[in-house]
C-alpha cells in the first residue's frame, strides 16, 4: 500500500465528510482584517471605560504586593477597589491622576452583569465582600506579619525558588486570589454576561436605532455597536495596538488578555486567540450589517472560548501545584494553588453558550474551594494530590479538553 494512495483516499474521505452541510443562506458579512470600524471617516470604536478599569486593577495588584510597595494600609487598598472612601466620599488612591479623576471603579462592575446579577444582588454583594475581605486581610494579616516564616496555621513568608511568597495561615496568597478572581468577576462577567448579552445589546429600541444607523447622543457609534466594543475592551483594552491585539496577546495586562496569551502558547490550544478575536470582529461587522443571528453566533463562540481559557488555567494551576507538592518546600505549590483558587473562583462567571447559566454554579464552585482547602485543618498545607486531581477532572469534564492538555 503506497502512502500517496492513502493520502488521496484520506483526502477524498474528508471532502465527502464536508460536502453535506452546504447551505446557501450564509449571510454575506465580511469581517475586516483588524478591529477597525468607521462611520463618515471616523472610528466608531470606543472602550475607554474598560481600559480604565484594567488600569485600576493593575494599580490595585501593585499595591497588594508585599515586595514592591511600602505596604499600603487596608484603607488605601480598599479605596483602590472602590475608588471611594469608606463613607462614600471622593477618594484619590491611585498614582495616576487620570484614574483618580475617574468616577468609575472596580467594585461597581464586580459581579454586576445584567444576565447574572441584576436580580441576584445578594450574591453580588457576597462576591464584593469576598474581595474586600481578601484585600483587608492582605494588609491586616499578611503585611503585618511579613517578617516571620510561614508555618501550617501561621501566616508569613515562604520561599518559592529564588522568589518569596507571602501567605495566610492556610497557605493562600491573597493578592493572587484578588488578581485571578477579578478575571472572572470583573472581566469575564462584564464581557460575557453583560455586554454580549441579548438583553443588553437589544435593550429598548437598540435594534431600530442600529438598523437606522442612529448614533448615540454626541457620539459616532450606535448604542449596540458601543456595547459590543465594551465587551471587546475587557479583553483588549490595554493592548499595544487594540485594533490588532493578537500581535501582543498575553503581554498587555495581568488579567484576561494575559491568560488568553498563556493558553494560546500551549500547542494543545493554539488558535484560540484567533478564534476569539475573529468572533469579535465578525460579530461587530454583523452589527453594522444588521445581521443579529450572526452577531449572536459570534457571542456564543466568545462565551465558550473565554470560559475555556478560565477553566484551562484553573486545571493548569491545580496540576502544576500538584507537581510541586513537597513537604520540605511548599512555597512553589502554594503559589500555583493560589492562582488556581482564583481561577476556580472565576468559573462561576463563565457562560455556557445557548444557556443562561455558567459552566459551574456558585454552589459547585464553593464545593471545589472547600475541597481544595479541606484536606486538613490548615488548608493548602494539607492538600493531597488526589484532591487536586478530582477537582481538575471535574472541571475538565465540562469542556472538550483533558487534564493532561491543560497541565502542559
Amino acid at each position, binding site marked *: *500500500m503506497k*502512502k500517496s494512495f*492513502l*493520502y488521496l*483516499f*484520506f483526502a477524498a*474521505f474528508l471532502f465527502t465528510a464536508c460536502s453535506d452541510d452546504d447551505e446557501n443562506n450564509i449571510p454575506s458579512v465580511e469581517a475586516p482584517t483588524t478591529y477597525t470600524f468607521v462611520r463618515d471617516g471616523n472610528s466608531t470604536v470606543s472602550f475607554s471605560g474598560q481600559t480604565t478599569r484594567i488600569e485600576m486593577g493593575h494599580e490595585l495588584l501593585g499595591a497588594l504586593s508585599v515586595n514592591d510597595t511600602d505596604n499600603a494600609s487596608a484603607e488605601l487598598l480598599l479605596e483602590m477597589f472602590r475608588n471611594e472612601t469608606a463613607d462614600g466620599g471622593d477618594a484619590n488612591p491611585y498614582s495616576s491622576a487620570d484614574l483618580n479623576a475617574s468616577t468609575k471603579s472596580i467594585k461597581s462592575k464586580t459581579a454586576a452583569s445584567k444576565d447574572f446579577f441584576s436580580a441576584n444582588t445578594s450574591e453580588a454583594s457576597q462576591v464584593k465582600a469576598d474581595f474586600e475581605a481578601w484585600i483587608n486581610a492582605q494588609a491586616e494579616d499578611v503585611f503585618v506579619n*511579613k*517578617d*516571620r*516564616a510561614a508555618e501550617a496555621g501561621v501566616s508569613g*513568608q*515562604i*520561599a518559592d*525558588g*529564588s522568589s*518569596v511568597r507571602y501567605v495566610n495561615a492556610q497557605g493562600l496568597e491573597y493578592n493572587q486570589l484578588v488578581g485571578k478572581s477579578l478575571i472572572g468577576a470583573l472581566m469575564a462577567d462584564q464581557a460575557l454576561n453583560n455586554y454580549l448579552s441579548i438583553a443588553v445589546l437589544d435593550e429598548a429600541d437598540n435594534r431600530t436605532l442600529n438598523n437606522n444607523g442612529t448614533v448615540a447622543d454626541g457620539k459616532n457609534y450606535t448604542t449596540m455597536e458601543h456595547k459590543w466594543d465594551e465587551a471587546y475592551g475587557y479583553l483588549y483594552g490595554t493592548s499595544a495596538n487594540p485594533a490588532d491585539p493578537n500581535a501582543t496577546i498575553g503581554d498587555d495586562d*495581568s488579567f484576561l488578555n494575559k491568560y488568553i496569551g*498563556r493558553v494560546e502558547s500551549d500547542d494543545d490550544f493554539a488558535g484560540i486567540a484567533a478564534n476569539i478575536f475573529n468572533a469579535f470582529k465578525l460579530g461587530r461587522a454583523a452589527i453594522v450589517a444588521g445581521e443579529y443571528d450572526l452577531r449572536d453566533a459570534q457571542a456564543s463562540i466568545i462565551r465558550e472560548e473565554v470560559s475555556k481559557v478560565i477553566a484551562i488555567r484553573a486545571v493548569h494551576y491545580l496540576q*502544576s501545584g500538584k*507537581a*510541586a507538592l513537597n513537604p*520540605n*518546600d511548599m*512555597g*512553589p505549590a502554594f503559589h500555583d494553588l493560589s*492562582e488556581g483558587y482564583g481561577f476556580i473562583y472565576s468559573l462561576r462567571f463563565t457562560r455556557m453558550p445557548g444557556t443562561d447559566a455558567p459552566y459551574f454554579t456558585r454552589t459547585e464552585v464553593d464545593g471545589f474551594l472547600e475541597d481544595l482547602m479541606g484536606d486538613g485543618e490548615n488548608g493548602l498545607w494539607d492538600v493531597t494530590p488526589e484532591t487536586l486531581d478530582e477537582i481538575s477532572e471535574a472541571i475538565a469534564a465540562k469542556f472538550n479538553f483533558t487534564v493532561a492538555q491543560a497541565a502542559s
Partner: protein
Amino acid sequence: MKKILSVLLLSLIAWACTEDETQINDNDSFDRAAMLTNWADNIIIPGYVNYNSKVNVLAEAKSTFTSNPTVENLTTLRVAWLDAYISWQKVSMFDIGKAETLGLRGYTNIYPTNDEEIEQLASSGTYDLELPSTRDAQGFPALDYLLNGTATTDAEIVARFTTEESLSIYLSDITDRLKNHAALVLDDWQNGYRDTFVSNDGSSATSSVNKLINDYMFYYEKHLRAGKIGIPAGVFSNTTLSTNVEAFYKQDASKTLFDAALQASVDFFNGKHFDGNGQGESLKSYLDFLNTITGGEQLSALINNQFDQAKQAASTLDENFYQQVESNNEAMLLTYDELQKNVVLMKVDMFQALNVKVDFVDADGD
C-alpha cells in the same frame, strides 16, 4: 466502507508515527546501586569535603580581616572567597538530603544580591537570616558586595570595615552561616544519609536516581544555562540584564565560576571522580548500557559532543560576563544556544531512555 476507511486511517497514523523514536530498553537491569555508590562516595561526599575545607579557610580569612582590617587581609579574604565560591559550583547541583531540607542553594547563591537590603540589615543590627526574604542579602553574592562593592577603592572598603562595626558583624554572620550550613550537609552525608541515599536504588519517582537526575537537570537548566548565561544575556527579558551576572561586583570572576559549574555538570554526567582519578557508573554508562541510539548515534556521545560545543562557545567569552554582555552579547547568546541543545538531548531523550519522569515544571514567571 466506513470500517475499511477507519482501518486505513489508523494504519496511516501508525505509519506516520513510527520513525524518530528513541529506543527504549524495557529490560533495565542496570546496577543503579553501583551508580549511586559512585555518585555518593566518589563525587558528592568528596565535593562537600572540599567545599567545607574552602569555606573554613574563608571563615578564618574573614576573622583575620575583621580583627585587623588591612588591604592585605582584604586581598587574602577575597582569594579565599573566590576559592570557596568555585568549590560551591561543584556541589550546587546536589539538592537532595540535608541540602534540600535546608534550602541550601537559596541561602548560598541567589543573585543579583540586594545591596540596599544588606546595608539596611547591617546597620540595623537586627536580622533573621533564616527568613527567605533575606536570601538575597546573604551567601556568596552578598560577600561579593561586601568585599568588592561597598566602596570604590580598596582603601575605602577597608576604612568602612574599620569604622563600621555593624558591617564587620554582618560580614562575620553571613560567612559563619555559610560555614555552618556546609558542615551540616557534610555531617549528614557522613553520618547516615549516604546509606539511605545508596539503598534507595529503585526506580520510583522518589528513588535516589530519579530525584538526583531531576535535580541535575533542574540545576543545568535553571541555574547554569539560565542563571549564569541566559538571564544576563536577556534571553528571558526584553533587554539584556548585564548587572545580573554572577559575582557582579568582582566582575572578572563570572567566567571562572561558569566554567567550574559546566565542568562539574560534564563530570557528573560521565561519573568522573572528584579527585580526577578514574570514573565509575554514571548517566553516560547507564545510557550506553541501554544502548540508547538517537538519530543513529549513541546518545551519550551526542551529549558529550554537545558539552564540547558549549565549552567551545564559552571559550570565546570574556572573563567578565558583565563586559561581555555590554560589548558583544551575541557571543553570550551563542553560548546559551549550545547549552540549550543539551537541555533537549538530556531532558527529552535521556529522561525517556532512562524512563525517568521530569518532576519540575517551567514556572510561568508570575
